């Protein structure tokens, strides 16, 4: 699905991401509050769902090559996080859904888990 379709499925607000970037196709996803958990995967997920709302969400995305980060549970997102996302070219979204609900909806929309272990 495209990132804009993903935003719609999660009733998410795009905090950073151009029209063009939101047209990117994404297939794999990882859901975690722990950045090391996301980095532990063999395959880099296209999208991360997380309850974390720190600068590390964007840095982890940049380091791992994740296209989009979605902050769940309606956590307030500081402006400097959005700025860093702009700097690092990471699509950033926010949704009020829980991590479980967001995961369930993306699964129903056809997204799949990234490869888990080496």
């Amino acid at each position, binding site marked *: 699905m495209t990132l804009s379709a993903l935003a719609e499925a999660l009733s998410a607000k795009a905090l950073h991401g151009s029209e063009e970037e939101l047209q990117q196709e994404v297939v794999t996803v990882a859901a975690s509050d722990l950045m090391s958990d996301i980095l532990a995967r063999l395959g880099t997920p296209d999208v991360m769902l997380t309850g974390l709302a720190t600068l590390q969400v964007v840095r982890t995305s940049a*380091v791992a090559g994740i296209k989009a980060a979605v902050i769940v549970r309606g956590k307030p997102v500081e402006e400097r996080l959005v700025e860093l996302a702009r700097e690092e070219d990471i699509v950033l979204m926010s949704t009020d859904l829980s991590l479980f609900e967001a995961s369930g909806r993306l699964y129903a929309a056809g997204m799949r888990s990234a490869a888990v272990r080496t």
Partner: protein
Amino acid sequence: MDPRFAKTRELLYQLRVADIIRREPIVTHPDQMMSELRAILRDRRISGTPVVEDGRVVGIISIEDLIGWLSSGGQDCPIREKMTRDPEVLYADQLLVQTIQHFDASGFGRFPVIDRRDGSLIGIMTKGAIIEGLLGKLEHALREEEIRQYRASHIFEDLTAEYKEIYLTYEVKGKDFDLAGKASTQMKRNLKRLGIHPDIAHRLAIASYEAEMNVVIYADRGVMEYRITPQEVSLRIRDQGPGIADIEKAMRPGYSTAADWVRELGFGAGMGLQNIKKCADRMDLRSTPGVGTTLKIRIFTRKANETE
């Protein structure tokens, strides 16, 4: 290898079918007549269509089928009777490199692309689409960043010396979560510009980031020293901190001495050292409690070249 070919190769492994296919393709229904198909192929200048019934791909009909029908008299009949039934399909999430094998193995010129979940038709994949897709992406690759990358990646080739290395250093401040990870993200960009193989850059960036986070979480300050030679990339990270009392225990998945505030920031779940180990070809961790810790990791670039 010519950098342009290397780029094409990289794209084959990066791009997925969904990135390049022709969407909303022209389709036919099995009950449409062959004479209609003839008009469709002629007017739309295409060489075949998927045949769709009730939202599902039931067959594929091509100009070859049309020619076969014409040469056997051209008695009008429904497409259903001449189409190839239950054709091989591709999935939108497959890597481009996998699809090329399909073209080679089957000899077919086009494949319907379907959604893995509900089997619905998303588009059609042809060799033409692959070429167009690759050319489009390669054009992108001529952007400024790529030019810079090209220049940087030639440093090793352009300079002559008996021994060549690039040495980059960053200082890390303990307990500063805002700056944490900045060195590693910058370093990843540097490695990309230097033309280091993406897999190597990815592994070094992850190991480096985990190591940097450990300094931020536990130590007062640290220094990260990266060394890049034609044979390997390595990182030595030294910190002034509490040290690790039991390294064997610290390496155990799930083991962590992190404080609660660290856990609430999404770190300290006892995975960092494991991740570093997975990424590195060599890892050497030494620590003196009360003094500090030195971690050295090495990743060999030669191995990546060998697989090419």
